[in-house]
């Protein structure tokens, strides 16, 4: 599905949207209000970003009571990885990523 892959890359091309994905990765199932806390973005901007992320299926939303909850959906990124990263390369890449983390004294989470 070429069009869907385009949507995923387009959605990932923005640092604000990647930040939102990072926030959901840290704490899945947040409301718009929770996502807006401690962010240097207007509520309107966050809403717009979330809409694009949802269209790319990078974010899934569900209603529970009166709350709309946002979840990180790993499917599209997984599919991209499957397409270009063979199962044999994965192990090697993990080792290299670990090495890089150790050498750089990684603090990123």
């Amino acid at each position, binding site marked *: *599905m070429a069009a869907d892959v385009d949507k995923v890359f387009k959605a990932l091309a923005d640092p604000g949207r990647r930040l939102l994905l990072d926030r959901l990765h840290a704490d*899945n*199932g947040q409301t718009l209000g929770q996502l807006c806390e401690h962010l240097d973005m207007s509520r309107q901007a966050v809403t717009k970003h979330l809409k694009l992320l949802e269209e790319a*299926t990078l974010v*899934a939303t*569900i209603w529970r009571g009166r709350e709309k909850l946002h*979840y990180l*959906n790993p*499917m599209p990124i997984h599919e991209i990885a499957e397409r270009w990263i063979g199962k044999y390369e994965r192990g090697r890449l993990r080792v290299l990523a670990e090495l890089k983390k150790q050498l750089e004294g990684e603090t990123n989470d």
Partner: protein
Amino acid sequence: MTNSRFVYVTLIRTTPEKLWRALIEPEFTRRYWAETWQESEWKAGASWRLMIPGGRVGDSGEVLEIEPERRLVLSWRNDFKPELHEEGYSRLTYELEKQGEAVKLTVIHEMERSGSKLIEEVSGGWPLILASLKSLLETGESLEATRRWPEGV
């Protein structure tokens, strides 16, 4: 947050009718869901069981809501691992929504307790099963890793 919840969305190039059948009919599920099949009359209030090879009951519950080709909600309790069984009933929701030439499938598996082991366990299993379901419907082949029930489980 007091609930444990798994949420997953996938777009599958198929029709709601085919996807619906693939979710409930044994000849489909056996191929992408590790040889398991489900037994139910598929109406609200009916009992539901997920059978594993050898004829054991893997999980069981009740059909809570059913709207063919659109929505299915099941209560779901594990029956073969004591530590999961004792957690009681979880709730599984499938939502199907036509989107152009594809169907958006949303899977929600949740339980009203924090840190559920059942939800943790199914969170590891669903992505593989759903990727295999997608592969089966789009290419006619399920994923190798999901074709057999794991030995010794």
